[in-house]
């Protein structure tokens, strides 16, 4: 059946081309269309915008799922979404938010900003960049198709086995989780690798490692974490797929398997993952705070050191998610101490931010508002994190709403606030228009208030004995009022998000045009080129003469960067349809496996290999463009 569908679609597709559409003109028209341009682009700036749009889309989906859950929990005994449906909502909410909203939004900003900050014309592997995006996108699509095809996964975003095995989660739900995440995970891994090589190899002359802007540093460390953490997820998902599809016994204890192995593998990936999503937010904070305080970042070297240390320690603490598994007091103690240690580098960061503002001249533009809202919120989340790190106390908190409160303080109050700061900050650079300050402020205040109203009370829910992942709770044990408040708070976040969407639409219609140095306070290289930048970014690769490269020039009285090379024609990579083709192949293959349609899966894999083959013999050398001379009004 599924194979039939796939074949049918394919046949229709070919028929359409061969009967009606097949003539040279048609192809020409397709090729010169805007859509084709976006589908095949390998330009990091456009890929950044694609990531941004997809990430926001999934953020709204995840937010709607959260809203529905909160509605169910508004009162005890509600019957909106009970049992399995609720579990599907909570699984898809967590999975969507982490993998399909937070991660791509981070990649959006990394793509838009990192090459500009290091003075590069593109990333190291433009082709892989595009491939990474399309794999993520089709993986996410596959995951969300589960709602239509037989039910969403319902075993939690952690998908603990036992429950996630066929016997206890029949139906294709968890298969969608496994294959959707596998595909988008490969995309993420490719993206991380690409940024590592970009930052190592593509820096402009003079841009030494200790002159990198902090956002680039965090992008670097985050990419390193992706590189080493995602393989664990890959292996875990592979094993779960084998267990579910091919009858192996990794996790079935009656056949000698062990559910604890899943927990290990998941958290070996999962803990670094939470730092993957917070570190870029730290980087954004550092850039935004120093810009709007009109001051150099306080303690740059220790900031870099702290970033690297957090990344490194992130791999040695995963067992703090498993304190109640019964691994014994020695293991628990060791991992508890390792976990607490992370508070030290994080604290260094927090204090450095505070002292960056100290003595500065703080302007509360929207990005800075988010940054200012971030600090106390994130610190609160970090504090509860340290409280969770104490095993005896964690025996009480674990899997209660206290944990839910903790991770929303760091994920929303940290990552999401950071991302909003970054989006407002770099929007002018990405789109060439300023977002409305007034709507931005409305967005900030409604979201902030709604956020605290929703999640602060949840600490108490946990302490009063409410486990997480429940669709209802008892009456008369002091939980009703708090849940009510918590649900009401969501309204603030919904309204805030709507303000944001209005802001985007409004700006795209009649936004103010942005200058090259959009905020007038730019310190780093991206503010030295027009907004939005030309396709080759830098007409001439700049010569970097210190940390905060643009600021250095400003202080020396220069209006722009000193070029490091003569003006000349610039080589650009050609767009390619292979990434999207390959991703569609993976998508079909994944779908085939899920519906147990081996032929469909085979067709998908054939497409993948065909694309690989095409790529292998692809000797496209790209093309050259002549940059506009910045002296002759090319600039700005």
């Amino acid at each position, binding site marked *: 059946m599924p194979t039939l569908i796939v074949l049918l679609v394919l046949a229709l597709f070919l028929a359409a081309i061969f009967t009606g559409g097949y003539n040279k003109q048609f192809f020409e028209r397709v090729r010169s269309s805007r859509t084709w341009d976006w589908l095949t682009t390998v330009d990091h700036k456009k890929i950044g915008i694609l990531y941004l749009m997809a990430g926001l889309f999934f953020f709204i989906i995840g937010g709607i799922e959260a809203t529905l859950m909160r509605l169910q929990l508004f009162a005890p005994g509600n019957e909106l979404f009970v049992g399995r449906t609720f579990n599907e909502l909570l699984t898809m909410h967590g999975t969507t938010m982490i993998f399909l909203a937070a991660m791509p939004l981070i990649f959006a900003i990394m793509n838009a900003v990192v090459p500009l900050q290091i003075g590069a014309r593109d990333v190291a592997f433009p082709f892989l960049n595009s491939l990474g995006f399309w794999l993520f996108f089709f993986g996410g699509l596959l995951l969300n198709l589960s709602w239509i095809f037989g039910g969403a996964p319902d075993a939690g975003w952690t998908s603990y086995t036992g429950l996630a095995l066929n016997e206890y989660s029949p139906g294709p739900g968890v298969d969608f989780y496994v294959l959707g995440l596998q595909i988008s995970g490969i995309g993420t891994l490719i993206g991380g690798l*690409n940024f*590592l*090589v970009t930052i190592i190899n593509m820096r402009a002359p003079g841009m030494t490692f200790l002159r990198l802007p902090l956002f680039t540093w965090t992008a670097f460390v985050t990419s390193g974490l992706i590189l*080493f953490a995602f393989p664990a997820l890959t292996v875990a998902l592979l094993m779960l797929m084998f*267990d579910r599809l091919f*009858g192996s016994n990794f996790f079935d204890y009656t056949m*000698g*398997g062990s559910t604890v*192995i899943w927990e290990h593998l998941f958290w070996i990936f999962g803990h670094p993952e939470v730092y993957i999503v917070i570190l870029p937010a730290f980087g954004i904070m550092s850039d935004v705070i120093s810009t709007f305080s009109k001051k150099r970042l306080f303690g740059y070297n220790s900031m870099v050191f702290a970033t690297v240390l957090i990344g490194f320690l992130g791999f040695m603490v995963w067992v703090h998610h498993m304190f109640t598994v019964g691994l014994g007091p020695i293991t628990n103690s060791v991992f508890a101490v390792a976990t607490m240690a992370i508070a030290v580098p994080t604290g260094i960061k927090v204090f450095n931010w505070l002292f960056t503002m100290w003595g500065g001249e703080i302007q509360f533009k929207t990005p800075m508002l988010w940054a200012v809202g971030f600090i106390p919120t994130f610190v609160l989340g970090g504090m509860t994190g340290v409280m969770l790190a104490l095993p005896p106390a964690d025996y009480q908190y674990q899997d209660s709403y206290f944990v839910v409160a903790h991770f929303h303080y760091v994920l929303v109050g940290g990552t999401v606030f950071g991302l909003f700061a970054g989006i407002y900050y770099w929007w002018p650079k990405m789109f060439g228009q300023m977002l409305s300050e007034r709507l931005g402020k409305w967005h900030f205040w409604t979201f902030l208030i709604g956020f605290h109203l929703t999640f602060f009370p949840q600490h108490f829910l946990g302490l009063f004995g409410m486990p997480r992942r429940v669709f209802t709770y008892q009456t008369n044990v002091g939980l009703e009022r708090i849940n009510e408040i918590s649900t009401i708070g969501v309204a603030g976040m919904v309204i805030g998000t709507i303000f944001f969407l209005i802001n985007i639409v409004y700006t795209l219609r009649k936004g103010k045009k942005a200058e090259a140095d959009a905020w007038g306070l730019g310190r780093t290289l991206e503010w030295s080129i027009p907004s939005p930048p030309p396709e080759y970014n830098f007409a001439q690769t700049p010569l970097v003469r210190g940390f905060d490269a643009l600021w250095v020039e400003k202080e020396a009285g220069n209006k722009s960067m000193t070029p490091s090379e003569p003006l000349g024609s610039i080589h650009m990579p050609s767009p390619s349809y292979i990434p999207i083709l390959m991703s569609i192949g993976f998508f079909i293959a994944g779908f085939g496996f899920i519906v147990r349609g081996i032929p469909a899966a085979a067709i998908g894999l054939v497409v993948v290999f065909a694309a690989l*083959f095409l790529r292998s013999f692809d000797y496209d050398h790209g093309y050259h463009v002549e940059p506009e001379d910045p002296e002759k009004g090319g600039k700005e």
Partner: protein
Amino acid sequence: MANQTNSSTEMPNHLETATFDGKNKVLGFWLFLGAETVLFACLFGTYLALRNQSLEGPTTQELFDLKLVALATALLLTSSLTSVLAMIKMNERNLKGMVTWLVITLVLGLAFLVLEIYEFLHYIHEGHTFMSSAFGSSFYALVGTHGAHVTFGIIWIITLIAQAIRRGITTETAPKLFVSSLYWHFIDVVWVFIFTLVYLLGKVG
């Protein structure tokens, strides 16, 4: 910018890193190998944790045949050497020499694969299958993933030989050939751990 060759006109003596693309490729590939290391570590960890869960099936002691493994090891180790010799020929711009060594590498790799398939068939016959127990699952997952890497490596090297013959040793083919050779050595490194931690340890107990 991506394809600029070295500013000096004379050919550099390490072709694989003579261009930006080449440099990026080699670095990117090393990073990829770093990720693969973690991937295999997870498979090893799982295998070692589950290797005594053979239920009614044969145990490691009963199952493994060291003679076969020794032969496979010798084949793969030798292929690692021939692969590096091919790279030396490549940097001497000796297409014929390079292709010869690569073909030898391929033959050794294929022989290894044949041995492995034979071994698997034998085990399945003994009642040790992917589905018979957690030991079986983790064993085939680990050794099978390695085998899949070998298979992929063989196909990859074949396409690269074809390209090298068509286009010669250039700054474009050289990085590809070079990273495929890195890949091949890496497979060998993984095998060193497989024969140590799976087969030899399985005999020791």
